[in-house]
């Protein structure tokens, strides 16, 4: 355990998370104060001070979210480097599974980023109005996010302090692969059906976004996200690794594959986030933004293009598919 904690990346990562959590705690206290005493109609010095304090909260959340966006790939990078120290792990996949905290931590991080992004969008609408209409909603929402953030912080520490360097872990081919004979795909899908779903859902997302059907686009995005994950791990990934049995979402993040993994997952997550964010803003707050819509579709399209290109390139180079 000591070696893990003394590895440079883990120290930097944990330090960063701690600093950010401290700031978030300040924001939490300020938000509680806001909820208790906010009354826009009052003209007291206290109310004016509260308005200032709401700026503190939004500044902290903005800053922290920005850094968490950077810390997420850094977290994955840290884990990847740890694979040298954990026996049996060849990439981040093995290290994530080193204890029970790994997977929930990673999933939670992504969820938190999505929620924080939504918060910031909501905030920007709120401050543009003349009477802070969403202040209470915003604040309660942040309290919820802060709860998740606290869990994340706890998991951060729990995860890194419980990685054994003595017990071997499985590597990705065991975790994801068919070596056990099990089919990892959900609902009994096979590859062709998965691919059809993948492209169909992509088209559905594009259509719902362009035609402004907010709720539908949220549903379509979430479905697409899930299917895309499986599609990347079980199909497109194999073309990145040029090996039909290599199923792993993390190996593509290594320098071996030119770090393309960051691009693949980054585009997918960004595209999904923007789509869902815009849809939520449109549905609940009647705010739409043409530009952001376009960017979200661009991200998703690039993502699909990138994945498909790997397949196409392989096919053209070798004349057959894997």
């Amino acid at each position, binding site marked *: 355990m000591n070696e893990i904690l003394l590895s440079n990346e883990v*120290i930097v990562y944990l330090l960063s998370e701690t600093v950010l959590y401290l*700031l978030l705690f300040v924001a939490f206290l300020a938000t509680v104060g806001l909820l208790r005493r906010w009354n826009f109609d009052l003209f007291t010095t206290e109310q004016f001070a509260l308005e200032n304090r709401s*700026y503190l909260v939004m500044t902290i959340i903005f800053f922290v979210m920005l*850094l968490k966006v950077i810390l997420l790939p850094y977290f994955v*990078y840290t884990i990847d480097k740890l694979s040298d*120290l954990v026996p049996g792990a060849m990439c981040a996949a093995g290290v994530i599974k080193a204890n029970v905290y790994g997977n929930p931590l990673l999933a939670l991080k992504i969820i938190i980023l999505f929620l924080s992004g939504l918060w910031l969008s909501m905030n920007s609408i709120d401050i543009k109005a003349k009477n802070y209409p969403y202040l209470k909603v915003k604040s309660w929402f942040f309290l919820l996010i802060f709860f998740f953030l606290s869990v994340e912080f706890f998991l951060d520490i729990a995860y890194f302090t419980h990685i054994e360097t003595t017990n071997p872990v499985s590597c990705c081919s065991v975790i994801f692969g068919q070596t056990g004979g099990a089919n990892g795909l959900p609902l009994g899908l096979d590859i062709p059906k998965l691919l059809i779903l993948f492209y169909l859902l992509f088209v559905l997302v594009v259509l719902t976004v362009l035609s402004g059907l907010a709720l539908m686009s949220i549903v379509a995005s979430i479905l697409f996200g899930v299917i895309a994950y499986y599609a990347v791990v079980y199909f497109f990934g194999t073309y990145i690794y040029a090996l039909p049995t290599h199923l792993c979402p993390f190996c593509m993040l290594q320098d071996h594959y030119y770090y393309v993994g960051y691009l693949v997952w980054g585009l997918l997550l960004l595209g999904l986030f923007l789509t869902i964010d815009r849809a939520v803003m449109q549905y609940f707050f009647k705010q739409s933004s043409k530009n952001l819509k376009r960017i979200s579709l661009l991200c998703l399209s690039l993502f699909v293009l990138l994945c498909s290109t790997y397949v196409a390139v392989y096919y053209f180079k070798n004349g057959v598919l894997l």
Partner: protein
Amino acid sequence: MPGNMIMKNAFLHFLTLLLFKQKGKHIGAVLISVIIIFLLSSVLFISSSLQKTLLDTLEYQSDFTVSRVQAGKSVTTPVDWVDKIIEINGVTKVAPRIYGRYFFAPREESFLLFGVDFFDEQSSKVFESLVKEVDLKSFLTTESMLVGSGVRSFLSKHYYKENFSFKTPKGSFKKVKIEEVLPSQSGLISNDLILMPIDLSREIFGLEENEVTDITFNVPNDAEWDNIIAKLHLLFYDIRVVEKREIKKAYENLYNYKGGLFLILYLVTIVTFMLILYQRYSMVYSTERKEIGILRAVGWSIKDILKLKFYETVVVVFVSYIVGVVLAYLYVFIFDAPILSQIFLGGANLTNHVTFVPVLKFGLLGSIFLFYAIPFLAAVLIPAWKIAVTPPKEAML
């Protein structure tokens, strides 16, 4: 054109204005930052460079090294073990080795003396890079050796310029010619190293015909490793098995450990630094408060001021970071890090003149950046907010 857009952007224009005209405000922070980043980067550059060098040499090493132990200490290993080991399934390239420390008695300095079977593919591979320049033919006809630069200078100091006479345990002297000096890039490994043909080394260490120091071999299929270790212990009750993967881990942890210690030191420094920063930016100088009040009075919103403060800080962070890292790079990889390198190499037997191999990993640079930037920005955030919410009436006073 984006270039034009940046030039025409009023906000950036104003930001640059302010930064230039108020340089003094930030000089202190930049200076301390540069020092911290410089030290941190140097430490990390040194450790990763050393690590790379060590790991590179490890590449050619065999997967396993076995020796005989007696009373917990390694003693000479019987050569006939080789036959038994070859028989194990999955084992390849079995090679016996002779090496040890030779003590130059009057001064108690020692060299690492390695006997290499230059005709054996496996053994010679390890030293391939070191002996690249050597004319093997002439080297092997006379009794000669290759020495590292530290050895060479030591011997010269004691007036051994062309040959050196080793004292064997049997009491006789063996004169050996100094053929070549090992290249300086391998400084770390070869500094106090002597390479010579294996039979010569056997003579010098006084080993019998059937004795070697240890035996190395490879096992290509890593799934078999644990199996083979078990078999070895069954074959020989007094065997010690050392695995390359253990050494690799040890090397990685070696500098991790030292590097980690340094990082903890930095944690303390960074925390102090943060406190200082917070203090300093918090001492809302009345001039800055008044200035921000003026901007607020002419129509700057809190958001605008925050944007200004944020970009101001980001510029300070980036400038300090780049300057610090570049200085560290020059210090470590161009000037070979005087002083710091001694701390790291922990005073080896002979004075080490090490050249650090430039190793620049994106991840390393990213780590340094995060380690510095996040505490810095966090420390400045609350003071920046405090000042951004300065009521515009402050300007009226």
